[in-house]
Every structure is written in structure tokens, then in C-alpha cells.
């Protein structure tokens, strides 16, 4: 019975606690710069992993408040500075959550820009309104005082941590985990045996929601189990 199980789920101790971390990023100005699509393609091939991360995962956090119309910096530049709507659409269609490594994400970006350039040779050398400057994200992980030893404490942590923490655990995590999942779902499944809850959280769409929305949805899902 659901009602009888509620206290048991809420108070059940996890096998290992969930330690909430946060992350702080400093932006380093990169050496690569692109004034047209050919240069973008070349830079995508050689830029540091931290640049791919910055312009995809990290920029999503920086613009988390936008519900629609912003996906990554490359798509935005293709649209706003190159007026290449078709390319912008394809780049914007990249869902970072499908990637568990920077290398595979980089390859997808290269493939899209390369194939667009082959189909639109004139576009390759056309000078953009403004250059694309590559940056790289320098990341420091910051511990927080919040610890979830059971579902109730976990919910409390979700409620109180910063959006940086939500992004770190929910979005960036797949690069560390090498899984199409996130820290929250993994913990719920492995430490509390709540696989369905974990799945529901992993299905939250970050491209049609702000990080505030993500936090609210996670809380709603977790509270439905309490």
C-alpha cells in the first residue's frame, strides 16, 4: 500500500550518502578563432576538450534561463553571425545528454559542419559578421554542506543547493559517469533501489526547461515518492 510505504521510503537509509557538490568555472580565452565555417571546422578539430565543453555543456548552464531557442554557442554563431539557418538548426539539434565523452561530441560537431560545408561550398569561406572566439572552461569542484542519507534529506538538498550544483550533478555528470544518466538517478537506483524514480528524473528535458524548472521537476518526482 502506497500510504503504508511512504514513511519507509522517506526514512530508508541509503547504502551510501549523496554528497552534493557545486562547480565553479573560470573562462580562459582560447587561441582558436574562426572567421568563417572553414576556420570553425579546423578549430573544432584541434581545440582543447575544455573548449568543446565550454561552448556546449557549460554555455547551457550560463543560459539556463532560456526555455527555447538556445542550444549551444556554435549553433548560435552559425545563425547570428553566419546567417546559415540550416547549419544552425542542425547544430542546435545536438542534445549534449546523448554524449558521454567530449570526443564523441566533438566528432558530431565536426561531422555536421563538414557535411554542411560540402553541401554549401560557398558558405565555407564566407566571412561571418563577427568571429567566433573559442574559450575554455577551467573547472573547480566545490563541496557543499548538503548530504542526502535518505530520500527526505536528498529532497532537502535539491531544494537548497545552487543551480551550479544541479547542473554539475544532472547535466555534466554523464561525462564523468560515461553513462547516459546523471548523479541523482544513479544514486537513487543504486543506493535506494528506486529505479523508476531514477528513470523519471533522467527523462526531464533540459532543452525545454530552465534549471529552475529542472529543480522543481526533480523535487516533484521525489516528493511523489515520499
Amino acid at each position, binding site marked *: 500500500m502506497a500510504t503504508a510505504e511512504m514513511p519507509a521510503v522517506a526514512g530508508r537509509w541509503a547504502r551510501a550518502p549523496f554528497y552534493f557538490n*557545486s*562547480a*565553479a*568555472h*573560470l*573562462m*580562459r*580565452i*582560447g*587561441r582558436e*578563432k574562426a572567421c568563417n565555417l572553414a576556420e570553425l571546422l579546423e578549430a573544432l578539430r584541434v581545440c582543447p*576538450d*575544455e573548449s568543446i*565543453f565550454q561552448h556546449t*555543456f557549460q554555455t547551457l548552464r*550560463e*543560459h*539556463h*534561463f*532560456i526555455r527555447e*531557442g*538556445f542550444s549551444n554557442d556554435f549553433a*548560435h554563431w552559425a545563425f*547570428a553571425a553566419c546567417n546559415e539557418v540550416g547549419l544552425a538548426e542542425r547544430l542546435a539539434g545536438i542534445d549534449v545528454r546523448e554524449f558521454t*565523452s*567530449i570526443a564523441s561530441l566533438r566528432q558530431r560537431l565536426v561531422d555536421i559542419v563538414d557535411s554542411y560545408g560540402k553541401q554549401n561550398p560557398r558558405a565555407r569561406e564566407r566571412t561571418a*559578421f*563577427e*568571429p567566433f*572566439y573559442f*574559450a575554455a*572552461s*577551467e*573547472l*573547480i*569542484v*566545490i*563541496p*557543499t*554542506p548538503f548530504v542526502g542519507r535518505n530520500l527526505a534529506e536528498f529532497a532537502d538538498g535539491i531544494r*537548497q*543547493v*545552487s543551480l*551550479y*550544483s544541479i547542473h554539475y550533478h544532472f547535466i*555534466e555528470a554523464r*561525462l*564523468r*559517469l*560515461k553513462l547516459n544518466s546523471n548523479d541523482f538517478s544513479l544514486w537513487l537506483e543504486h543506493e535506494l533501489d528506486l529505479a523508476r524514480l531514477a528513470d523519471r528524473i533522467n527523462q526531464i528535458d533540459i532543452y525545454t526547461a530552465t534549471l529552475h524548472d529542472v529543480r522543481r521537476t526533480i523535487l516533484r518526482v521525489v516528493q511523489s515518492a515520499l
Partner: protein
Amino acid sequence: MSDGKLPKSKATLTSEPPPEGNSVQAPGVPEVERRQRPRPKISTTPPAPPPPPRLDDYEPIIGKPELDDLRFLARQLRGKTVKMVNSTAVGGGVAEMLNRLIPLLNELEVETKWEVITGGNDFFEVTKGFHNALHGGEYAVTQAVKDIFMMYTEQNRQRMQFVEDLFVMHDPQPAALITSRERNRGCWVWRCHIDLSNPNPEVWGFLRPFIDQYDAAIFSSPAFSRQLACPQYLFYPCIDPLSEKNKDLEESVVAKVCDDFGLDRSRPIITQISRFDRLKDPVGVIQAYKLAKKYVDCQLVLAGGGATDDPEGAAVLQEVMEEADDDPDIIILNLPPWSAIEINALQCASTLVIQKSLKEGFGLTVTEGLWKGKPVIAGAVGGIPTQVIHKLTGVLVHSVEGCAYQIRYLLTHPEYAAQLGKNGREHVKENFLMTTNVKRWLLLFQILLGMTRLHSPEER
């Protein structure tokens, strides 16, 4: 404003000449109506600055977790000392920023000292020449110029002590103090607040050997940077949400300022705050307003300074007055530099904020407008596109016609305009607040001092 600088017919429209710093109404309003408007009351001398805010004062704005992150980062830096050096203690954006940043770092127990370099008029003439030349102007770096620069650098070097762990030199004036480096083992940072995208090669060629000795350089935009031997970081310029110009105002204050300036709050108000400078295109703003006004009712406020102490500013103001012609809904205000509350109130009262610059550094007036949750229409130049993401946090325009269209569109689509304003405020909160820059400094200090381990995004 000096009466002599205005066409007599316009300067004498009010019942008595406006005192310096007060409003200049556009011509054309019947004399009776003008006399009914109360005279704006702005102090003729700068008021005493309020005490700087405490860190806890920012909690309602950025939240406790964000403050906790700052405290955590600072805790690791306890016992480390920082010296920041610039060329002036008052006036200008750098001094304004340091006046806020340094108390916050000290409150976080990262002991930070602020020193100002000294020099004679000849030194500051040279550094002003450098400043203009680094923006692309002409300047001859003669041996005499080099000697003056190095002589005052040496004087300051002798006067100052360099015993801290970190040294931050702001802009070119103190840049050569890096020659003190041999005396100790601190880390040196050059914070460049100016646009180096197209520097005069002679001046840059003289300064560059000094800059290459630094451990890191900081720029306000990737476009402003140069290829250097040291790592370069991006620190956006920022606003202080608790400053007079950006803090929340009581509605009664906003209402009073609008009353004082004769604004009708029952009708849309569009505002551009900027110096009377051709690069801010105030005449273009009036032209856009006139085009839009054929379809939508609105008032235009052009408020700024620079027309009192700058001959070119006075000339631009005159052009603006002429373009305004007889329109009673154009309100032109030449404000003194200490009009922060008035500017804040005007931005708060605005339906739309415009910054139709033709050339721009970063454009902090855009940041201010966005922070007040206003839909912003801005020229796509300088640092503005970093702030105004077209159709997401505001709209970018490239022409008078484009600006006019966006005025019409946003005034007739208030829900869309409101969403832009909401996104714009979030964008500022995320990227362009003083507290974000405090965090950037703390991170940079930790990285330079080797006190933290950088994580790869893929690292467990």
C-alpha cells in the same frame, strides 16, 4: 549646461534658464505647459557615497548557496594577500568597480590592498596618449615619452612595497611595475579594461614586453584580447546590484523623478541613457522614435552627461535638440555625474530601454537596463551582443529603421517584451554582477597560487 551653448530659442523655453545639470526640455511645448512642470532638483555637488554593501546584503539577490560558494573559495585563500594598483581613486569605471570589489574581498578575509600610482601631469599625458593609441589612435612613442613613463614607474616602484602574494595591475598605467617582480615571488596579473583589438603598433610594441612577463592577463571580451605568452582569462565588466544606479527603488522615488522630469507614466516611455556622443547615435534614436511614433504613442527620454565639460558633447547636444524639433514628447536631460538615482528611476520607469550605439566598449548601460528587467533594443556592436542575445534577452538592430520597427513591435507585443526583459535580468544575474566577478577573482587567485586542482570535465 551652459546657456550659451544652446540656441537661444531653445535655451529660453523655460521660465528661467535651467541651472547646470538640470533638464533641458525639447522645444515646442507651449510655454504655459512648460511652466507647469516642476523643476527637477538635482544636487549641484556630489552627495557623499553610501557605505559599501556587506556580503550578506547580496543574499536576497543571488541566494545563500552562491554566497556559500564564495565563502568556500575564499576560505582556502585565507592568509594570502593581494595588492591591486590602478591610476585613480575616484572617477571612472575601474575606480568605481574597485570601490566595491576590494571591500568584498576583505570581508571574505582575502586581505586586499588598493594602491594608486602617482605621477605628474606629464606622466598622465603620456598614459592618456597610450590609452587612446591602444584604442587605435595615433601616438608617437618618442624616447622622451618612454623616459617619462619609466621614470614615474620607477618612482612608484621605489615608493610601493611588493610583499603580497598576488599583484593585480589595472590597465597600462601601472603595467611596467612588473619590473618589481624580481624582488619577490608573487603572482602578477594584468587586468586590461580597454579594447586591444586594434592597438597602435608602436605603443603596443613598447608595452608588450612588460605584459609578457605577467602570469596571467584578463580581458573584458575575447575580441579585446591579444595573443600573449601568458594565459588570458575572460572577466566581463559587471554592475553592482546594490549601487545607487542599480538597487531597487521605492515606487515613490520613481514617481517623483518622473514628475520632476515631466514624464507621463500613463504612456509608454522609451529611454536611452548615454553621454551626448555621436557614437551613441542619439540623433538616430530620435529618428527611430519619429518613425515608430507614426504607429505607436510613446515618449522618448535621452538622458546623459558630457555636454557640459566636453565641447563635442555640447555640439552633439545641439544636434539632438535640433533633431528633436518641436516634439513635446522628447525629453532631453543633461545630467551631472552624480545622478545615479535619477538614472536608475528613469530606467525603472521605462517601457523600453534603447542603446543604439554605433561603436561600444562593453556597454554597461545595456547591463543596467537588462538588470531592471526591461526589454532592450541595442546596436549590435562591441560587447553588446554578449549581453543582448537577439530575440532571447533583447533585440539587436543595425539601423534606424530596424530600431523603429523593434520599438513598434515591442510596444505592441507586451508579453514578448516582458519575456525578453525577464530573460535579460537572468542573463545579468548569471554573468554580469559584481558577485560573479568576486567569484572569478577567487578562482583565478586559487589557480595562480596552485591551491586547487583543476578538474577535467570527464574526470570522476
